[in-house]
């Protein structure tokens, strides 16, 4: 069953159109990166998918459920981190695990404890005594110990230093390789997660700009590095974007013949970050 089907979602906050015809599908086994600049509607979209806010329009189903109206059933199949490292500071870690176990039958306490055993986090400590990085580890250990079919992460590395960011995504990838569940993750930092994604969705001003399997990247997009004298010929081929670099001009093309492009310069596959910039500049 398709995890998430979102079509033409709209949501207005006062004068701001936070979502303006947003589309998304997430299939089981996909790791989908929802990537967009700050204020592009990523969090609004996730909140709607998690049933935390109501939409103004469009069609949204998560496992065939209506998120705001069937939240409890939804939360039995979906785990999420909406605010990384924000956990009740007054609570002992042991009590926190007991609480989650008591309200969520899908929570595997042993797995969470095993994950914590590899850290410096002691169960008798209060959450408030942990450092930011440790709190994030705890949060992730709890969420990954839920046997959920869909895992939703909103900017999961915000405010973390580079070392923890790396560890976070390593842990996430290990979990994915073991469980093969669908993961939907947002970030404004493409580079951080491009190596773990099966799919990318670019969002800008509340609208889906591109949905692409990362394996299709090479087939659909090409980057050409060319000299200035070739630039007019390449511009005539309708590039997605053009930018100056140290070595000449870089053009990014969509659905263009690589053979035709090779006549004008050095052809390669753009990185997701380059593609993101190109798509965002296209407007």
């Amino acid at each position, binding site marked *: 069953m398709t995890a998430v089907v979102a079509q033409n979602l709209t949501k207005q906050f006062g004068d701001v159109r936070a979502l303006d015809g947003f589309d998304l599908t997430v299939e089981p086994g996909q790791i989908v990166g929802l990537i967009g600049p700050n204020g592009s509607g990523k969090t609004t979209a996730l909140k709607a998918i998690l049933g935390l806010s109501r939409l103004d329009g469009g069609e949204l189903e998560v496992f065939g459920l209506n998120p705001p109206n069937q939240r409890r059933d939804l939360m039995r199949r979906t785990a999420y981190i909406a605010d990384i490292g924000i956990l009740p500071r007054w609570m002992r870690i042991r009590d926190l695990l007991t609480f989650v176990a*008591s309200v969520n039958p899908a929570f595997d306490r042993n797995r969470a404890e095993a994950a914590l055993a590899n850290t410096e986090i002691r169960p008798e400590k209060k959450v408030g005594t942990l450092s930011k990085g440790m709190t994030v580890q705890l949060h992730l250990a709890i969420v990954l110990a839920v046997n959920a079919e869909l895992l939703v992460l909103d900017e999961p590395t915000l405010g973390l230093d580079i070392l923890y960011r790396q560890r976070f995504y390593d842990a996430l990838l290990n979990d994915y390789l073991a469980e093969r569940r669908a993961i939907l993750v947002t970030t404004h930092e493409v580079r951080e997660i491009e190596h773990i994604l099966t799919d990318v969705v670019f969002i800008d001003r509340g609208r889906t700009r591109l949905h692409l399997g990362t394996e299709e990247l090479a087939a659909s997009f090409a980057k050409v590095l060319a000299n200035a004298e070739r630039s007019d010929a390449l511009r005539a081929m309708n590039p997605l974007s053009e930018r100056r670099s140290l070595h000449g001009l870089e053009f990014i093309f969509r659905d263009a013949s690589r053979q035709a492009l090779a006549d004008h310069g050095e052809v390669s596959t753009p990185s997701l970050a380059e593609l993101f910039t190109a798509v965002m500049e296209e407007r």
Partner: protein
Amino acid sequence: MMSGFIGLCRREWLEHRGGFLWAPASVAAVIVVAVVLVLIVGELDLARVDLDLDISEAPGSNTEIRIDGEDTSIRDLVDGWLAHHEWTDETLSAHLATLRRGVAEPFHYVYFIVLVFVLLGALYDDRKDRTVLFWKSVPVTDTETVLSKLVTAVWLAPAATIAMVLAVQVFLLTVISGLAATHETLSIWPIWANSGLFIGLVELLAGYLIQGLWALPVTGWLLFISAAVSRGPFLWALFAPAALVVLEALVGLTPAVRDFIHDHLAFRALPRARPGDEDVLEHSATGLGDSIGLLVTVDLWVGIAIGAAFLAGAVHLRRTKNEI
């Protein structure tokens, strides 16, 4: 479903253990320490007390107490009082009932203060510290969340208060038994037989149970405000109704809001408050029959309906308002 609800209640208890458990425990400790101090000091001969109390001019009094430079102590005074009193089952039972209820009084007020602050923070604090998104990541409904907060604060937390009241009552009876052991006029067995400990416990349990229903318009209102406001829940809870009343008076309408608040809402959460200034706890204390009698009054059920409406509002707001 049920284990989930118990888990939610346990969470509430843990979060507010300070107010639910340590607050009444502190009251108990203060009383016990005070009594022990009096016992110690009471044994001491107060050095040459010169006491010349003449209250014979007070209306209806012809008492004169005169202690002229004799060595005396509180213990001597208590002994004198115990020895010269006529102790029958009736007088003993009446004195002990007064003591029993008097001891419970400070606990009721401390519980009331804790209750107000716990309920005002219940649906507000986690929005303020942003943990609400974590609490919402577990499969429970907003109705379960709101009800767990109400049930824990109103019907489970009093168990700790009642246990502390009972402990202090037993302690005081033990002290009195110790004092009585030295008197021929008073023996230990009648003290415990007339202590009313058991009926007192039943009164407290029934009293808090019914008080919880009686206070529902107020507790519901507090939870509603807790879910609704973005800052200052205490001020909102207090001044929103006050502002309505003032506005009503300014506009010159008949004081419908004022009368409504006065008749149906105000002070319902106070232990000593019901129409006609009777005390629900004391009321129920006169017998279980009266407690149950309160259950069939229209007033109670009107209050429950109003409370339920506020709770429904709180649940709705909890569902839609996640952020401050």
